[in-house]
């Protein structure tokens, strides 16, 4: 019933209600504190206004009072902290199997690409009720992906992937803002998120011709760059076998172990010698400056598609329409 109350934006995601609940609690708490302090000041100012012949009573202070009004607020603060932390923890942990959208930000535009291959600019179409994970990077300065109706915001940095996720709960068209100042047309770097019923979304998805899934175009780039010569699917390659590595720990030459996530794959393409896999030599050429952000996201999506999806997430290669490359290079 408060969905259209003008003091906060529409609630259109699974998290929005939780954020608003804490907000309302804090508004009530602050209102109460303000009222208490202002009333006291008003009462004292009236009751103890200066009058002839009446002197102020000198009071040194009271340690008991000081401790009371330190401990009680501290207790309340800890409750707020925990409450806020729980929401944040949830916001920062994308559910397994979320469908993925790759976002590349640049001055002053949002470029988005769905797993299925659809590309959008300054617009994002998503179905109601599906977990959507955003994997974002910037081509130039820092931007920030902000959808007030979803109560999510995440800075988008050059040189790395940051992620955010949401589950839209209400069909509609919502603002997408860049909220990190990024230059001249910062305020023009806005777009919209369209939340659709699933059937409509499927229709939208099958409309508009695409050149195949993101993973399929990644595969084609993978071939063009000659990667399969070393990254073979058997143990004979000069580079590590990429099948099944995504999300798994990788033993490095220097003894450390890292998880092969999007940022690790990205780094391994751009500056391969940064983290060498145990048992391999640093012979891979540097691709920094040779592949653009959008090609990179496609490559990352392709490498991810070589690992079995944890649950119902779309599997890149299997969706790839025939015609891009006939054969998986690993076979």
């Amino acid at each position: 019933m408060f969905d259209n109350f003008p003091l906060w934006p529409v609630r259109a995601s699974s998290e929005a209600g939780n954020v608003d609940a804490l907000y309302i609690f804090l508004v009530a708490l602050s209102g109460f504190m303000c009222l208490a302090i202002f009333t006291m000041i008003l009462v004292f100012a009236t009751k103890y206004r200066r009058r002839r012949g009446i002197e102020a009573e000198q009071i040194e202070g009271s340690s008991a009072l000081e401790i009371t009004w330190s401990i009680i607020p501290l207790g309340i603060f800890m409750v707020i902290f925990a409450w806020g932390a729980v929401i944040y923890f949830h916001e920062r942990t994308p559910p397994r199997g979320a469908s993925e959208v790759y976002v590349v930000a640049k001055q002053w535009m949002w470029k988005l690409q769905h797993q299925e291959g659809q590309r959008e600019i300054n617009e994002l179409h998503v179905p109601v009720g599906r977990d959507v994970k955003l994997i974002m990077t910037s081509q130039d300065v820092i931007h920030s992906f902000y959808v007030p109706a979803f109560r999510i915001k995440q800075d988008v940095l050059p040189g790395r992937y940051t992620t955010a996720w949401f589950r839209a709960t209400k069909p509609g068209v919502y603002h997408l803002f860049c909220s990190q100042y990024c230059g001249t047309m910062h305020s023009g770097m806005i777009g919209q998120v369209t939340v659709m019923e699933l059937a409509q979304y499927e229709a939208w998805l099958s409309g508009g011709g695409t050149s195949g899934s993101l993973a399929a175009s990644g595969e084609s780039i993978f071939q063009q760059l000659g990667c399969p010569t070393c990254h073979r699917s058997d143990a004979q390659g000069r580079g590590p076998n990429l099948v099944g590595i995504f999300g798994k720990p990788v033993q490095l030459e220097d003894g450390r172990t890292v998880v092969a996530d999007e940022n690790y794959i990205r780094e391994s393409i751009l500056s391969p010698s940064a983290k060498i896999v145990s048992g391999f030599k640093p012979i891979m050429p540097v691709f920094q400056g040779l592949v653009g952000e959008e090609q990179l996201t496609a490559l990352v999506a392709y490498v991810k598609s070589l690992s079995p999806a944890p649950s119902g997430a779309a599997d890149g290669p299997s969706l790839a329409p025939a015609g891009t490359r006939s054969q998986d290079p690993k076979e």
Partner: protein
Amino acid sequence: MATLAITAEREHYLNKEYGIRSWLLTTDHKRIALLYLISITFFFFVGGFFALLIRLELLTPAGDLVQADTYNKLFSMHGQVMIFFFLIPSIPAVLGNFLVPLMIGAKDLAFPRINLLSWYLYMIAGVIYVHCIVTGGVDTGWTFYTPFSTAFSNTRVIEAGIAIFIAGFSSILTGLNFVVTIHRMRAPGMTWSRLPLFIWAHYATSIIQLLGTPVLAITLLLVVFERAFNLGIFDPTRGGDPLLFQHLFWFYSHPAVYIMILPAMAVESEVVACFARKRIFGYNFVAMSSIAIAVFGFLVWAHHMFVAGISLYAALIFSILSYLVAVPSAIKVFNWTATMYKSSISFTTPMLYAFGFIGLFTMGGLTGLFLAALGIDVHVHDTYFIIAHFHYIMVGGAVMGYLGGLHFWWPKISGRMYPEGWGRLAALLVFVGFNLTFFPQFILGYMGMPRRYWQYPPEFQVLNVLSTAGSTILAVGYVLPMVYFLWSMRYGKIAEDNPWGAAGLEWKTSSPPPTFNFDEAPEVTWEAYNYEEIAAPAEVQVER
């Protein structure tokens, strides 16, 4: 003027010497305070002018008054001017400079020449910055975030960076001067537990200036070098890290908030004690809370970065630490309120500012609790909620404190009374104008309006119109005191040595004080705020 004949009899710091040399080469802390007063007032109105243009642009959703690039420069330079050239020097360099030696019974600061050097550094920085403004300005936001500032902005980033770098040394030297003065120059009998709370808060402020400002200096230098010599420290394509800049920048710039607010708290304690005619409730707790704020203030910087891409666990730690720093601030508010219990309150202009300060600082502090809550910060970070929050602290807190203090000590500084009726009117205008300007911005922020937007979706217009309306009232409230302070220097009623019946050594010398502050070296045998021993003035003078 008949009054001139009376004042001419007694020699004081203002009439001891005349001429431009006697001011530009002075080492008298009181004269240097006045030099600062004039310089920061200039920058306050420059920054205020930018703010008014920003508010006028935001009157309509379309970007129609100025170009996008101009708007970006306006908010960038508004922030830099107000923070580095007004707020940081405001209370310490003007009131602190004037009062620290007087309050502890010293002839001057420990290093009078370094004090003058501070002002010259400030002025060199100011001249460079003004040159930067008139030759094109800077559009990085006050925060200089990389890689925008290092590789993408086409404006005078290097010049602005150098100006602020130099201004930082002015701030460091003032802090150093205060720390040494407070340690070494206290009059006999002026023990640490007898220090006015003004001194405690300035001591805490000085520590932050000394420890924090060098980090800002290095950070700005790195930005300047990266831009000038094409280094790669913050450039991800060469192994640099743009987030490193944010860590370094906020390591100073969060404590810098306390550089601005602690001195306002310092003023608040003096004013409340005087016009409630009482010792501040819980003196020790108020004094120690200043130190606690200075210490904890250094441990919370990454709460500006909850959505910047820091790790989940780092965010949790910085969130909990941010709540810890809120406790000493709360303690202060409770103690000022408790001081009014069974007191004897008079409603002079400084006291009206003090009431305003408590109200606005409380609201600013409470909304800080929202921002420290991780789940809420994700939504309101980089929106107008932030803008409203820090203006409640920086303007509602620091500027109200500064103006209150200026009124309170004006009789001591100038030897004249300001017109009380006009003073009260201005205080009221500032309070009303401030709330009308900034309260709507809390709602705007939660509605989702991002900051630094030159144009905005039309549903945000109503609240923006309210805010702009408020800013015009606020502007009148700020211009009024400048007019009547100037007026009072010539036509104001001659001030007595202690017109408020205030405790504190500064009121025991004449108004204005002699060059070496005290005709006889004071010896302190009483506790701070011994209001039971001082008669309240028969009535508080109300003119016109």
